[in-house]
């Protein structure tokens, strides 16, 4: 038995209240195992990770026992723990960029972990060991990497450096807290493979903490599912996948295995046509006499979004996903080719649901705003038609109050759209802060649709949400597609989400 955790409880004490992050958790792991801990944010998985690393902030009180190699870590003092940390238990964190000291060359930072635990090693020996470990974690040109500062390395390389650092003293246990969350999909896979090979080669036991069941599935044989500070399920990953017992686990898995959408063929009118689109930006000359250089973001893109169709735009960061959406919105003007829109003013749904809503206004006011300023007669006609104002007002002719929508009409449209995004009417009187992330994203969707737009660009609309909420929002978007014949350009880095949502996928590759 390498690690045995008994009835671990963690409480955060602040001036005003005590909150319980982990409410009594017990589990054990054998030497050489890879154990997954999965859960959404707030489930206590990260707090537990910190507790296992003995890195809890001072406001946290914890009880129970963490028996590591027949020794309880909980009563140990800071200096006793120091000998274990970085030597017998090592950690890899989520953000490799900020986890490294920006002012120190990475080689030196990795060397430090040797220096702390074995003062007898000479400089040459230490450097030699670091270079060898760099090679083991498959870093190209270790000598060069050794001399680099963190910001000069890519995210994947930084994470390899972090892993090399964690392995320097050949720890018995490696705790990896969301090690791949901040990385691109293909780099994610590489890092996970690296962790697996480390486990096989050195027999290092690994605890992998993640919100992503697929990551857990790729690497672990056993897993714990945490929900609201408790372990709700534990055991074999495959078994949990096949026979989930707890409701939460079931929703986690069903969110994953919703499977692919049956793609339909659309040949009706096109909402968006992109022809031979090449995006670029010009870099201003830095020196006098230098010519301006042109940097290409993507070349010769061709795709069409038909009415009622959801088209996915997929690619790693830097492949131009967001630039294409900006070009469609008319915000990026440096392009050649054609972008044809059936309706003007396409609307967007962004990843960050909170910052798109004015925090000082109530939801009702926010939703009415686009309607309040409508003056253009053609647009007014369209809004009245699309949102079936006449029907909403019970057959009553819309009052023709000059060239604007009357208060009554606006209210009716807002109520109607709220129904579509499945929010209760009381929400009109609430401020954005009083809503959860998922509810705010529903408001954003309503906002995108309110002025009669039936084509929206959704830029990572669920990436910031928890898995269960993700599922609900995706379901809502699919419903809207059916009910309102909504067309959508769906931008995402997440292949599973795209498979579930989209009728057609446009794959982007970063230009060399």
């Amino acid at each position: 038995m390498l690690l045995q955790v008994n009835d671990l409880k963690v409480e955060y004490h602040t001036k005003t209240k005590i909150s319980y992050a982990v409410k009594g958790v017990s589990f054990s792991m054998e030497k050489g195992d890879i154990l997954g801990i999965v859960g959404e944010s707030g489930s206590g998985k990260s707090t537990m990770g910190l507790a296992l690393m003995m890195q809890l902030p001072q406001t946290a009180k914890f009880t129970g026992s963490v028996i590591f190699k027949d020794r309880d870590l909980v009563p140990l003092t800071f200096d006793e723990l120091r000998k274990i940390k970085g030597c017998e238990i090592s950690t890899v964190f989520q953000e490799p960029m900020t986890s490294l000291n920006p002012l120190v060359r990475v080689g030196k930072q990795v060397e430090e972990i040797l220096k702390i635990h074995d003062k007898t090693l000479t400089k040459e020996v230490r450097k030699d060991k670091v270079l060898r470990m760099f090679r083991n974690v498959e870093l190209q040109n270790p000598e060069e990497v050794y001399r680099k500062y963190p910001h000069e390395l890519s995210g994947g390389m930084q994470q390899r450096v972090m892993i090399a650092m964690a392995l320097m003293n050949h720890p018995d246990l490696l705790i990896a807290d969301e090690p791949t969350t901040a990385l691109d999909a293909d780099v994610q896979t590489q890092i996970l493979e690296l962790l697996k090979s480390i486990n096989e080669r050195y027999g290092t036991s690994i605890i992998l903490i993640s919100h992503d069941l697929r990551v857990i599935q790729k690497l672990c044989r056993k897993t714990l599912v945490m929900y609201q500070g408790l372990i709700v399920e534990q055991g074999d990953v495959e078994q949990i996948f096949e026979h989930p017992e707890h409701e939460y686990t079931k929703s986690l898995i069903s969110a994953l295995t919703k499977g692919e959408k049956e793609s339909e063929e659309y040949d009706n009118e096109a909402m968006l046509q992109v022809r031979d689109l090449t995006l670029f930006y010009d870099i201003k000359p830095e020196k006098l006499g230098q010519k301006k250089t042109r940097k290409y973001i993507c070349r010769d893109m061709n795709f069409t979004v038909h009415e009622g169709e959801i088209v996915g735009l997929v690619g790693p960061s830097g492949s131009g996903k967001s630039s294409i959406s900006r070009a469609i919105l008319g915000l990026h003007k440096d392009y050649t080719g054609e972008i044809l829109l059936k309706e003007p003013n396409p609307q967007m749904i962004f990843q960050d649901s909170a910052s798109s809503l004015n925090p000082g206004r109530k939801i009702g006011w926010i939703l009415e705003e686009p309607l309040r300023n409508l003056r253009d007669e053609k647009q007014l006609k369209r809004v009245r038609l699309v949102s079936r104002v006449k029907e909403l007002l019970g057959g009553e002719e819309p009052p023709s109050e000059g060239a604007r929508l009357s208060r009554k009409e606006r209210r009716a449209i807002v109520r109607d759209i709220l129904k579509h995004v499945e929010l209760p009417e009381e929400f009109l009187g609430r401020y954005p802060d009083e809503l959860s992330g998922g509810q705010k994203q529903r408001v954003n969707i309503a906002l995108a649709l309110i002025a009669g737009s039936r084509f929206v660009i959704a830029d990572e609309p669920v990436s910031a949400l928890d898995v269960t909420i993700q599922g609900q929002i995706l379901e809502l978007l699919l419903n809207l597609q059916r009910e309102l014949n909504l067309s959508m350009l769906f931008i995402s880095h997440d292949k599973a989400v795209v498979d579930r949502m989209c009728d057609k996928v446009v794959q982007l590759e970063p230009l060399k």
Partner: protein
Amino acid sequence: MRYIGKKFLTLIIALLLISIVVFLAFSILPADASIAKLGQNATPERIAALRAEMGLDRPVLVQYWSWLTGAVRGDFGTSYQYTGTGVASLVGGRLGTSAVLSLISLVMVVVISIPVGIFGAKRRSVAGRAAMTTLVHITMGVPSFFLGILITYLFSLVLKWFTIGKYVSPAEDLSASISYLVFPAIAISLPKIAMTVKFLVSSIRAELHKDYVRTAYAKGCSRNGVFYGHVLKNSLVPVITFLGIIIAEIVAGSIVVEKVFSVPGIGLLLVTAISNRDYPVVEAVVLLIAVVVIVINFLVDVIYQIIDPRVKL
């Protein structure tokens, strides 16, 4: 190197702009230097004659050009007040005194505020923090000239540690000079120390919550290892920029304090020159102070780049 070259170019441009502003400021003043020299009752003929003699009747651009070319060669013309004395020698004779005074002040700021800041940042108790903040805010709020008066009263009149007015120039006896200048230096630096402490404390506190600190603890670093090996250097990066501003304020602060302690530096020279409308001297001193401030900021930028590898253009 490219970064430094770029910074150097902006330095030259800034200096040129300052010279223009300084020169224009004095040439648009209604009270002409000739009137200042001859008095309000002088006849127009005499004034015209003197203006011609001083070259004040030439177009402004021509005057500026001859002033600038002279300034580059170190020739700032002659003082109106001390007739026949070159401005350069007048300023040069006092430059050493002011330089020593500013240097002592700066050393005090660095040597005192860094340890105090570290000490302050490590205080965790509520009472300790409150005491620290109160002390810092009071010290920050007291103006240098008032501190100067308090210090002269306490150390010169009550304790008799030095005699006010009995200043020895550094050329004559450096240690005697320093032991006199320490007192005005305290008056100048005390508010600056408080500011730097406050800045450093908040910088350290911000750094302590960064992810790399967590990494350092996870490596098994000791508390001091984390603090001195990782946190301190990162916290000092913004402080370096801050010190650039502080140096400018020290130079500016010495003008008033030199008067209070009757230290014959360029600050005292400037105050006297202004009240006597001795424009060549005023121009030269203002330009000199501006140059010092800009050059120091240039040095700060260079040091900044050496310390922080991310600053590269």
